[in-house]
């Protein structure tokens, strides 16, 4: 694991060289953040009346943007591991092994690859437009946070229910407006967060 502690912490760096407790703690933090977002009561989207949307995808997008591709994906993976162990940390107090056999399993798997893609695309885009963090983050969220997650989620629905892909896609499209709102919020947070708190930038320090 790379990303040692910053130079000013000489004592800690010496002990910690190459272990990366900083990575581990940040990965755990974002896993917990996704869980805490599940505690936010579900709100109904006025656009698609009655369709519950979860803010947990916001945490997935932020993990990719702020922690970068590898650590972002690891934090989602860790979150899912804690879910599998039986912690009721998915929105609505769901959790346990049951969710991995439900129709939304594809989306859960998609979160891992979504965070990976968000982090990767964001870092690549920033090379071309370092001053336009909001635009770069928004594009990364659309590609990774929406497209990639649905690319896993829709086949997941098809697999669990036996529905055809086209029909599963139709049913899933209801959730896209909510995801666009979340991507705007995630990009705004990433663009406004002080640069020294931003691991995507901090890594090059």
């Amino acid at each position, binding site marked *: *694991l790379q990303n040692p*502690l910053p130079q000013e*912490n000489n*004592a*800690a760096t010496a*002990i*910690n060289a190459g272990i990366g*407790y*900083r990575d*581990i*703690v*940040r*990965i*755990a*933090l974002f*896993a*917990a*953040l996704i*869980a*805490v977002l599940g*505690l936010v009561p579900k709100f109904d989207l006025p656009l698609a009346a009655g369709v519950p949307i979860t803010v947990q995808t916001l945490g997935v997008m*932020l993990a990719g943007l*702020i922690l970068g591709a590898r650590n972002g994906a690891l934090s989602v993976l*860790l*979150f899912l*591991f*804690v879910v*599998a*162990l*039986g*912690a*009721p*940390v998915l929105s*609505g*107090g*769901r*959790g*346990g*092994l*049951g*969710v*991995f*056999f*439900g*129709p*939304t399993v594809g989306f859960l798997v998609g979160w891992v690859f979504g965070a990976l893609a968000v982090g990767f695309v964001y870092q690549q885009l920033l090379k071309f437009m370092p001053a336009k963090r909001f635009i770069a983050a928004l594009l990364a969220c659309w590609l990774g946070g929406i497209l990639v997650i649905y690319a896993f989620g829709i086949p997941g*629905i098809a697999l*669990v*229910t*036996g*529905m*055809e892909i086209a*029909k599963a896609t139709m*049913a899933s499209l209801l959730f896209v407006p909510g995801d666009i709102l979340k991507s705007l*919020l995630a990009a705004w*947070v990433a663009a406004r*967060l*002080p640069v020294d*708190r931003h*691991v995507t930038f901090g890594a090059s320090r």
Partner: protein
Amino acid sequence: MISLYISSTTWLHRIPAGAKLAGLAIASVLVLPVGDWALLSIACTAAVAVYFSLGAPGVARLWSLRILLPLVLGIGLFQGLVMSWESALVSVFRILFMVMLADLVTASTPMQDMMRVVLPLVAPFKLIGLKPKTLALSVALVIRFIPVLAAQWAAQSDAWRARSGRRPGFKLIIPFISRALARTDQIAESIAARK
């Protein structure tokens, strides 16, 4: 930290965690090719019977699964309208059966036992740098962070209200994440110092 585990000692609790997880894995493979809704409805009835055999906490647990119903019935309705009602029944019963089966494992297995079964399974990942000890530490950190973060959010929104007299909006997310990241650096230093 609340878990979905029901703390009591029923017959299901006495089956070793490894056996329950293996059974679940086998059942998940066996149930996929079944296309007969009558057979799947019998399987569901059997799963419901298992919940009832666990006594009052089991029944309460079954009742708590009702949050799944809107989603599952929605899928069934959609599938019935665009495909056939028979395939809708098959998928609704199949989902309900597998979810109940997996939930029964979670309900009757303490988190520590689940960890004990899982940790040896991740041993091969040592090759790519994931040590079982690291995984255990990470899980403990997540479980500890959840109430800490919730308290931090509450404290920061109180401070916001005290200063502005208004309810904090989503703008609070930025100072919230900023402070949380600052704290993780301190925690990382503490862990490094202790080792």
